[in-house]
């Protein structure tokens, strides 16, 4: 399972005074089991991009290819959404059924799963997001807390068994523990279930903690697609496009400037701790 984006450009309101190029010449490919972080300023084109990956938007030029097939030519919408799931920002606003079970079953039903398949996938998905199936299945989603609603909404997309899951700011608005729980489950989906994850986030630390590779968008262009280590290596360039690096890395850079010879290519908090202790020394 792979997604290839070739030469993709998207222009909104083509041919009117409001004409606006949201994406320009985007080229990349994503393989199975990848965990990709997508970062960029608001309005950089990242939300336009993700809507192309499951056919919600059609490219003005270029193509999106899933498993060798151009999705806009050879794949009906139902086939696309079977493979690529999108969890939009504040997904709890898509809940509408009377019970959690029915809501999570909505997607699989739409794409033609059998009754047995639906039951199995609903149970699995609810458990994958850390909820107790028997406890929540008959509860109305509207009676749940914000954090639980968010999980039910994610389960609703997972239940369609996508091989690629795109999440737009899945943790926004949650409390710190809620944030790390959701991100933990997403990481598990990648590592244990083998789903390819594309995580759109404003939070550099989340991206640093989980992503194998990072896409950086600026003004409608994909300016960088590399490992976090490489992407975070050019602090000046990131800052020029309004982004920043994780705080741990800034501390390492500060130390380097003061003449302490630490490895500034590290960016995760736990790595930074080890590195500082290695260089400066622990027990003193």
């Amino acid at each position: 399972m792979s997604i290839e984006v070739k030469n993709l450009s998207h222009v909104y309101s083509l041919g009117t005074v409001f004409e606006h190029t949201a994406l320009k010449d985007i080229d990349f490919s994503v393989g199975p089991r990848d965990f990709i972080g997508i970062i960029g300023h608001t309005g950089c084109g990242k939300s336009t991009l993700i809507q192309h990956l499951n056919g919600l938007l059609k490219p003005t030029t270029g193509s999106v290819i899933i498993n060798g097939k151009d999705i806009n030519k050879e794949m009906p919408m139902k086939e696309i959404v079977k493979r690529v799931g999108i969890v939009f920002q504040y997904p709890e606003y898509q809940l509408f059924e009377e019970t959690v079970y029915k809501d999570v079953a909505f997607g699989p039903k739409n794409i033609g799963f059998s009754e047995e398949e639906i039951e199995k996938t609903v149970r699995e998905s609810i458990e994958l997001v850390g909820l107790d199936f028997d406890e929540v299945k008959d509860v109305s989603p509207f009676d749940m807390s914000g954090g639980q609603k968010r999980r039910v909404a994610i389960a609703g997309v997972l239940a369609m068994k996508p091989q690629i899951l795109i999440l737009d700011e899945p943790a926004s608005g949650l409390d710190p523990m809620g944030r790390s729980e959701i991100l933990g489950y997403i990481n598990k989906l990648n590592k244990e279930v083998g789903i390819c994850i594309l995580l759109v986030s404003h939070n550099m630390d989340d991206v640093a903690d989980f992503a194998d590779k990072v896409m950086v968008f600026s003004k409608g262009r994909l300016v960088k697609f590399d490992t976090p280590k490489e992407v975070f290596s050019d602090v000046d360039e990131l800052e020029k496009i309004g982004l920043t690096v994780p705080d741990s890395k800034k501390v390492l850079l500060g130390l380097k400037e003061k003449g302490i010879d630490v490895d500034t290519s590290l960016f995760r908090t736990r790595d930074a701790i080890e590195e500082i202790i290695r260089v400066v020394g622990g027990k003193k």
Partner: protein
Amino acid sequence: MNNIIEVKNLSFAYDSDEPDKKALENVSLSIREGEFVGIVGHNGSGKSTLAKMFNGLLLPTQGDVFVMGMNTKDEDSLIDVRRTVGMVFQNPDNQMVATIVEEDVAFGVENLGVEQSKIRGVVEDALRAVDMFEFKGQKPHQLSGGQKQRIAIAGIIAMKPKCIVFDESTAMLDPVGRSEVLSQMHKLNKEDGVTIIFITHYMEELIDADRIIIMNDGSYYKEGTPVEIFSDTDELKKLRLNVPETVELADGLRKAGMNISHNVLTKEDLVEAICQLK
């Protein structure tokens, strides 16, 4: 300093049929004039409910809330309470009333019955204070989230409150919008002496607060300066909270035996502290 807000033995239940299901239980605290206070707590800890008590949007089931000595339960002084304590909410879209920016800023001032000839001046000053003057003729939906929140702030400061409550006003913004709103809060606090009460999930936004109050399961848990509050990372995690990343890094180093002061909250201080050990 005088207390601008005093909360005494406050309990509150949303549903009068279920008086035992309390959103707030026996909370007592006070806010001093000119302070910058952060209030934190997990989702459902009661912090937003508490915020709505400060200007009489919600009234205590038991106990009292006093704003400059006025009881919020006293209907005659409710308008004075609300012009003393203004409030900026979480969702920037759901607090704009008018279809034009300047009209929205004028809304509160008009409600107070300010003399017509004075309104425009007040509105324009408020827009200048949040750096949004050139947007006065725009429509709200043409603005970014951070800009909308600044308009909401302008609408409040036009009413000249002594205290402004920010109820998770940065939660729905991107990093740029968040820092815009945060620096606006500090500016109001430092330059105009406005008391700020800031409810948030983002601990790093409270590094410069005078005081942080922790709410837990509807009760007042504890309070302290940022240094005091962030010094116990493990306790905060138990409360479903966290510490700013720099503090976590410092904490990790401390646990490995490095002698780093709990006063270290910023990157610069941490670099300095490590250099001293070398």
